[in-house]
């Protein structure tokens, strides 16, 4: 059994009573990393995994075309870490999903998850899905046929987790504490990243590398438009050919469509096969929205979006008035 007994029981009950049609959550994927798992039967609950290494883009499956096709009304239960409840809030506020379709099983006391790329880089000889224990400020990794290795937490934490300031679900139908939970240590809070002030040259170097696979869009839980402008041929907003100019236009459109909505979950960056620092962009955008409008996405399920409402007190509202409108 990979999840605590009480949680296991709860999930099985949800499924066997027919209260939810499926449970969505993280599981062990191939090698040392997680994958999303969808359990439709009580037996399938066995595969869930709450190890900090089992981190996966679970929420994107809520709004995918496949999910929409699935018989709609009965709720889905979601195993959600605190930051994921923030994303759920955002999705609710956009009415991409409805509250009564959702049964949120919040995971409390989150101290962050491991970035499997960092782990692989640190321990390239690792095979399979290792045991991970948390001991103070270190992760202890016990791989197949390997001596346990201690690695400082902040060397392995996913970027979105360093500097994360929520450790409890923002809302839930049920909550379960993660094993070994402990408050974030001072050392970790310190490594919160400064929003980037890199100049254009830096970004040109990055965008030049983009292969326009659109994985960043497909991985984003908030990119759920059925008919994305970036796929449209008439008009073709961004030509298909890959060049610095087109790649930049592609990223700017993507980022602008997410401004004020993006929760800096970092799934785009995780998905990028050529390591573009997309979370840096996301954070910059989040910071701008905060400074300009005092808005923070995903903290209010009823929240109105700064980019879709007009307020005369908005910074650029003054300009309109001066122009006599």
């Amino acid at each position, binding site marked *: 059994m990979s999840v605590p007994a009480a949680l296991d029981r709860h999930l099985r009950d949800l499924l066997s009573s027919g209260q939810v049609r499926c449970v969505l959550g993280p599981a062990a*994927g*191939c*090698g040392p*990393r*997680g*994958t*999303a*798992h*969808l359990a439709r039967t009580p037996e399938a609950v066995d595969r869930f995994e709450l190890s900090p290494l089992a981190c*996966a*883009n679970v929420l*994107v*499956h809520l709004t*995918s*075309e*496949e999910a929409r*096709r699935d018989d709609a009304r009965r709720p889905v239960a979601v195993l959600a870490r605190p930051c994921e409840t923030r994303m759920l809030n955002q999705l609710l506020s956009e009415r991409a999903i409805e509250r009564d379709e959702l049964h949120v099983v919040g995971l409390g006391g989150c101290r962050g998850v491991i970035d499997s790329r960092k782990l*692989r880089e640190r321990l*390239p000889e*690792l*095979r399979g899905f290792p045991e991970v224990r948390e001991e103070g400020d270190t992760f202890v990794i016990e791989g197949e046929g390997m001596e346990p290795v201690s690695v400082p937490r902040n060397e392995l934490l996913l970027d979105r987790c360093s500097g994360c300031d929520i450790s409890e679900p923002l809302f839930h139908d049920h909550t379960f504490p993660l094993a070994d939970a402990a408050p974030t240590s001072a050392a970790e809070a310190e490594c919160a990243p400064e929003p980037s002030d890199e100049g254009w040259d830096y970004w040109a*170097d*990055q965008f030049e*590398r983009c*292969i*326009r*696979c*659109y*994985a960043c869009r*497909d*991985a984003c839980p908030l990119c759920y438009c059925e008919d994305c402008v970036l*796929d449209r*041929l008439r008009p*073709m907003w961004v*030509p*298909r*050919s*890959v*060049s610095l100019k087109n790649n930049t236009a592609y990223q700017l459109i993507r980022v602008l469509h997410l401004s004020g909505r993006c929760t800096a979950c970092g*799934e785009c960056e*995780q*998905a990028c*096969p*050529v*390591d*573009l620092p997309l979370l840096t962009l996301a954070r910059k955008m989040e910071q701008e929205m905060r400074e300009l409008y005092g808005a923070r996405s995903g903290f209010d399920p009823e929240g109105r979006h700064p980019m879709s409402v007009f307020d005369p007190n908005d910074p650029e509202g003054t300009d309109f008035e001066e122009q006599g409108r």
Partner: protein
Amino acid sequence: MKAVIAREDVGRLLAIAARRDELHVPVLDGGGGRFVPLNAEDPVPRDGLMLNGSSARRPPKEVLFAQTAPLFAFELRRGDFSIDELPPEAATKVLFGVRPCDGRGFRVLDSLLLGKCGTDPAYASARQGSVLVGIGCGRPGSDCFCTSVGGDPHGTDGLDVLATDLGDALHLESLTDGGEGWLRAIAAAVDSPLTPANPETDQRCREAHEEARGRVPRHVDLEPLDAVLERAFDDELWDDLAAACIGCGACTFLCPTCRCFDVQDEVRGDRGLRVRVWDSCMFREYTQEAGGHNPRPRRGMRWRNRFYDKFRWGAHDGQPACVGCGRCITHCPSGVDLIDLVERVVESGGAA
């Protein structure tokens, strides 16, 4: 021909190679590595050159089968147009540091793009005379499984020259006429750093090959697969197998043997290019018809198409169109594992 070159002289060899031909080498680029052109006057990127360790994340496919390639140029006039054909690639391309799996990947691409029906002129002219200098893998990557699909970390199929890493030196062996010609030309250069191979280096070479084979980390038994695929097409299992997939297409963009492309006209003013650009069969839009019909509306169907294409339809010379490079496994953002899928398909037995 066989020759040996001291590790510290590889830069000199590359400089000679770059003087002769258009040379491409794998370098670290902040995104896991790719092949870039190296000019004779460029300094050889010492730390960035990806000759030991594992393969570049982006396969060398893009050097010969460019992600964006113009098919022709055109000029629009009132109710009319004229077409300018573009000159074919003239320079001979030498790719130094091709992994054996990627070398075999070009074999697959050849069968698809220089195929029975038509020939892609841009690929054909880039491929014409190209020399693939392979480098064996002393330390295979974490998801490599070339030995399960007919390859080997020092496999020669598809390559013109194979380099074996002997630690302090590289051992080079030509495998084709093109490779022989290239290696002789390098050896004949006045400042050539090549020295003849000898029985001792041959022996070390064999040992390195043996050792590397044992280090390939992953394995899958494809023997039973074909018989299952024969029956499994209409099975329910594909939607389940694809459940975690987010349809992002990263797997196909990194695959050394995927070649799906789109064709688009890109116009500025009254001039433009018709270009072919990589596409992915993992995208819903790929088969979406203008009239609204889509023969492959579900992700499971698209996965099934890719899977069959790699392991059954695209197979040639009795080998699958997957060369086991492991990229689609390592870099799938959703943790979908091709090997695991093969095993689950086999397990299902194609129960339909």
